[in-house]
């Protein structure tokens, strides 16, 4: 099939941009390790409270790992446990969360910490918290009548 001359220019430009775009995305993903949250560990969602680390929700300082803090969160209709989190600015934090009942969201508003929490699966995302302030955590997946009331707060504070 023969294409019109201008159409060839147009498609060459378009497909060229597409290839550049996908290359950048691919290098980000596979070279810089910037995949979206895709952890694959599973859990018995009916016994979350008995299983580590979810038997102790909260902020835990860790050593000997690639990150400084583990933030463990348990979601259930319609709240997060714990309701408030505090981490020092500049630390590398691994968020580890799961759901005890239906599908919930875990979104730190205005940041790229954003993951689905599904019963039976453990969601994880590691990031560096580089700005102090109060960050609202909201449930961004419809979970029932109290969905819009489901939130908690992450406080990024100066180092003591």
């Amino acid at each position, binding site marked *: *099939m023969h294409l019109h001359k201008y159409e060839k220019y147009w498609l060459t430009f378009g497909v060229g941009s597409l290839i550049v775009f996908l290359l950048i995305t691919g290098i980000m*993903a596979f070279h810089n390790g910037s995949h979206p949250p895709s952890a694959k560990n599973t859990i*018995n969602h009916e016994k979350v409270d008995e299983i580590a680390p979810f038997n102790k929700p909260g902020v835990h300082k860790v050593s000997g790992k690639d990150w400084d803090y583990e933030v463990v969160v348990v979601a259930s209709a319609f709240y997060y446990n714990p309701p408030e989190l505090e981490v020092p600015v500049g630390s590398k934090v691994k968020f580890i969360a799961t759901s005890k009942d239906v599908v919930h969201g875990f979104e730190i*508003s205005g940041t790229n910490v954003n993951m689905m929490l599904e019963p*039976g699966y453990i969601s994880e995302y590691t990031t560096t918290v580089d700005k102090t302030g109060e960050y*609202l955590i909201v449930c*961004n997946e*419809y979970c029932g009548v109290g969905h*819009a009331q489901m939130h908690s707060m992450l406080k990024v504070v100066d180092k003591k």
Partner: protein
Amino acid sequence: MSQTTIDQSKVIKENVTVSRKMANKTAEILKVDPKDAKLSMAHIFVAFIALLLGGTAGLLQVLVRSGHFELPWGIGYYQVLTVHGVLLGLILTTFFIYGFQIAGVSRTSGTLTPKQRLICWIGFWTMTIGTAMSATMVLLNEASVLYTFYAPLQAHWIFYLGLALVVVGSWIGGLGQALRWMQWRKENPNQTSPLLSFMVVCNNLMWFVATIGVAVEVLFQLLPWSLGLVERIDILLSRTLFWSFGHALVYFWLLPAYMVWYVVVPKVIGGKIFSDALARLSFIMFVIFSIPVGLHHQLTEPGVDGSWKFLQVVLTMMVVIPSLLTAFSLFASFELRGRELGGKGLFSWFKKLPWGDARFFAPFMGMLIFIPGGAGGIVNASHQMNQLIHNTIWVTGHFHLTVATAVVLTFFGATYWLVPHLTGRTLTKQLNQLGIIQAIIWALGMTIMSSSMHIEGLLGAPRRSAFSDYGGAEIAKTWASYQVAQAVGGTLLFIGIIIFLFIFVKLCWFAPKGEEEFPIGTVAENAEKTPAILENFKIWIVILVALILIAYTFPIYDIIQNSPLGSKGYKLW
């Protein structure tokens, strides 16, 4: 080798002359048969009843979320949201599309046989009964699970059965339309089939393959589980099956709008279709790249490997190519026509287009708004950028540009000739004026509502949420003014719906009797010939199935292999 090539080109040339002759013959089939018209109108009635009810639900939603209005009589926000999503996303679209497609096939391939028409009627009633069943459960507050019905929120089994009937009915109706095209092919061997009918068959084929995933989810997971036959359900599998359908669903909405843009609009402006071959090529590409892409809706989910998500991101982005083809073809049609009318220079041909014709103006506004819609879509499907906006109200803003403007405004524009054509009435000057005003109100309302949704989403506000101050959080205060703006835009859109339905009612029963044209464009004289391979569906089906197997076999195997304890049902509304 070269000998065969020459022979083939000779054959193609002969075919072209034959199809030109045929084109003259088919030009005589100007009017859709009254029995087919009745069938088509039945679909369109259901569609616009859904528009009225679903649009009212939309108005209530934006008012509630503005924080200045509360629903009376204990009606729940999420019940209203379910009504809005199901009626507008599934019912308005599917019924209007089938009404349009039936008329289109009848107009371009010829009147349906009684058997084909009967098949289409059976499809219609199956879908309508299914709709009534699901709607009843939603109204009884037994199914406030939104139109994506994610488990383990568990609706009444009648809700799921109703949706299954809608899908099965759409298979039956789609088959009826495709049979007419197959008959045409049999009666006209070795000829290029009518473009509009070919496009209908592409859309129905894609729809059929895409709905297999959601049908498996409903029939083998949700129904037995909601009936209590099985206790637990695999959540991730159900979501993955849903999204293997969910993205093709948006192309199923979009392709009929593309049919209007490619085939009807060139005729409305008095021009020609730029290239029959390019139009077919872009439809085939939509078919191939519609289904093996659903994981881009699940980028932030646990349980699926990042590499498989990335593969589907790449396949998703392939849609850029047919989109660019389409944009080029449409504007080439416009420019050729504008220059024919004496437009000179780089852009002055643009002014020559028939801006006072609602049949052109409404779809054109749709095309215009599709540009930011498509750009936002690239953000959504991007492997990393998606994380900032996933499940924020940005996404709601996005599909209100694509489906609720590009597609819906095109459907409105199509109604202005399709309905009077089918009812034997005419679009008067006043109704045409009203159509233009309607399109302006719609574009304005949607610009206000959708822009504020996009910005609010970037600021982190979640989608699908009732009004909340989130415990007085500072960031939630920055969302409030955008929510008021959405209520303003949403109110304008509701006014748009009322004006549109007024025009529709006039065109059904009150406009003056007469002949309204069903515009079908002809291909430009010096356009490229259409290669026969584009009509060889066997090849495309093989490629489509191969891509689906490549993209989905391992992820689904992995999900089943590593599945945790399944979930019982919850009714949390």
